[in-house]
């Protein structure tokens, strides 16, 4: 396929499928289509990379330990609830 750098209609069509591509939820022909386009289109390549980075950051969002005071309160509340029933 010859990619015309001035024709962005193809970019817009692919734009709403980039997450499916990143998540590996596309069939082989669709995946190949995206890869061929991204290899030629700097804008879509930039978009794909920044979207990937965003997802990676979300996955690193960090986990907080449950505060001990809250955990104790939760277990006490459950005990009271159980004994009241």
């Amino acid at each position, binding site marked *: 396929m010859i990619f015309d750098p001035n024709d962005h209609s193809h970019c817009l069509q692919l734009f709403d499928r980039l*997450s499916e591509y990143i998540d590996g939820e596309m069939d082989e022909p669709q995946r190949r289509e995206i890869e061929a386009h991204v290899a030629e289109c700097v804008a879509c390549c930039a978009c794909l990379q*920044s979207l990937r*980075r965003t997802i990676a*950051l*979300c996955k690193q*969002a960090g986990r907080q330990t449950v505060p001990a005071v*809250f955990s104790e309160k939760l277990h006490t509340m459950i005990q009271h609830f159980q004994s009241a029933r």
Partner: protein
Amino acid sequence: MTAEPAPNRKNVVDDDTELVRAINAGRTERFPELVKRYEQKLYNFGRRMCRDESDAEDLVQDTFLNVYRYLKDFRYETKFKNWLYRVAANTALKKRRRSKFALEPELPLEELAEHEELAAPEEVPEWARMPLEQVLNEELMGILHQAIWSLPEKYRIVAILRDIEEFSTEDTAQILNLSPANVKVRLHRARLFLRDKLKGYFSHDL
């Protein structure tokens, strides 16, 4: 009475099945084991869903109380974890509806498409090329959490379940009672929204 799957229905067995069956068979003294197993995960889910820490704690408490009340209705047809998160998601959504009556805004894809980027192609931005460990810092995590909180709830819950809790599309659809296609659309819009917020942070920083 323990709920048994109807004939011809799938009976899912997972790491929680033995414990859940024991509790439903009357060994309710084992319920705290279930709480211990999931309090950390639900606390973090609550912290992502609620801006306020006390709201997050209320969400965890109310979720476990609802689980205790309704566990007998669990039919072993899904993973227990999916059912638990469904209870948590419903608890979160009900809480919001009680406190606010505003309609949830949509995130139109057209506005999230970077027209300027498509019109004037540029190279991969530096923040997307740098090693992850170089860009991760407390300030960035703060920006990310603010961005997640600023997502409309129906997008936020999908982003949290898919990209933070790492549920599959199918499991997320089951938890939220949405079609997989709907989950994909909401997730993509949420990710584009978050990318836009993060890009703003890096454009000031670099």
